[in-house]
């Protein structure tokens, strides 16, 4: 069955392809840009693409959280760190020697090939019946079945906040 480009299914397929292209292009920019700030911009693009992918996987809540946490918080924090640490005179990053770049390409190509083949060859068994998965069920299970993990994650985040403050303050003049 081939949907027309102008039908609803065709348009949603086109938007999906746009999200996939944004993800891959953003990831490539993030790893290959010569300026760190552009690399963070590529990372934000890749995260927006991944948020769209989550939407297509039937989870608007996780897509929203992806945009809020990754694009809104993590990318902005990385930009702050770049502005604090990166000096103005060393703007362009030095390139690795071709040997290491070749090594990286070979290693990642081997991993991608192995995972790709594994994903395509394995006879996945689809679930017999799927039910739920909405925001309401998600909230209920976060506070019942996964309540313990939820509280532990909160403690981890608290420790991370305090640890980050202590680490970043130490060695400052006058303290």
């Amino acid at each position: 069955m081939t949907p027309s480009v102008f039908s609803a299914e065709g348009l949603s397929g086109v938007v999906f392809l746009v999200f996939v292209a944004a993800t891959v292009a953003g990831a490539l920019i993030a790893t290959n840009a010569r300026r760190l700030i552009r690399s963070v911009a590529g990372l934000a693009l890749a995260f927006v693409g991944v948020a769209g992918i989550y939407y297509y996987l039937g989870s608007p809540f996780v897509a929203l959280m992806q945009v809020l946490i990754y694009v809104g918080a993590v990318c902005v924090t990385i930009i702050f760190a770049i502005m604090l640490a990166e000096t103005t005179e060393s703007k362009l990053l030095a390139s690795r020697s071709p040997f290491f770049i070749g090594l990286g390409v070979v290693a990642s190509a081997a991993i991608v090939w192995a995972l790709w083949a594994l994903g395509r060859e394995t006879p996945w068994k689809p679930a017999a019946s799927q039910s739920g998965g909405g925001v309401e069920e998600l909230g209920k299970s976060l506070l019942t079945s996964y309540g313990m993990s939820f509280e532990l994650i909160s403690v981890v985040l608290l420790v991370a906040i305090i640890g980050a403050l202590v680490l970043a303050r130490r060695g400052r003049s006058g303290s």
Partner: protein
Amino acid sequence: MNALTLSNSLETYLVLGALLFGIGVYGMVQRQTFIGMLIAAELILSGASVNFMAFNRFLAPDPVVGQVFTLFIMAIAAAEAAIALSIIIAVYRNFKTIDTNDVADLKG
């Protein structure tokens, strides 16, 4: 297999997750600054999350589990980014650089 119906097959998402993971590994090997390596680590984590969400959508009987796991991965990644960035700032204050080759005081 039509290009417009790709969003309905599990393989598409698995291949996308593998691509994100591979690009992240490449960046991890090739980058020479701590912040670049942190960015590559974030790409690797999101590749793993895409895989979890894909299995959650197509294979899991209860499609809440994968979403909960992805939310936990996001929280861990945020904590990791905060700690890594404060370490980077501390390193920059002591060494005046964030290049991985210059921070080599313990090298024999």
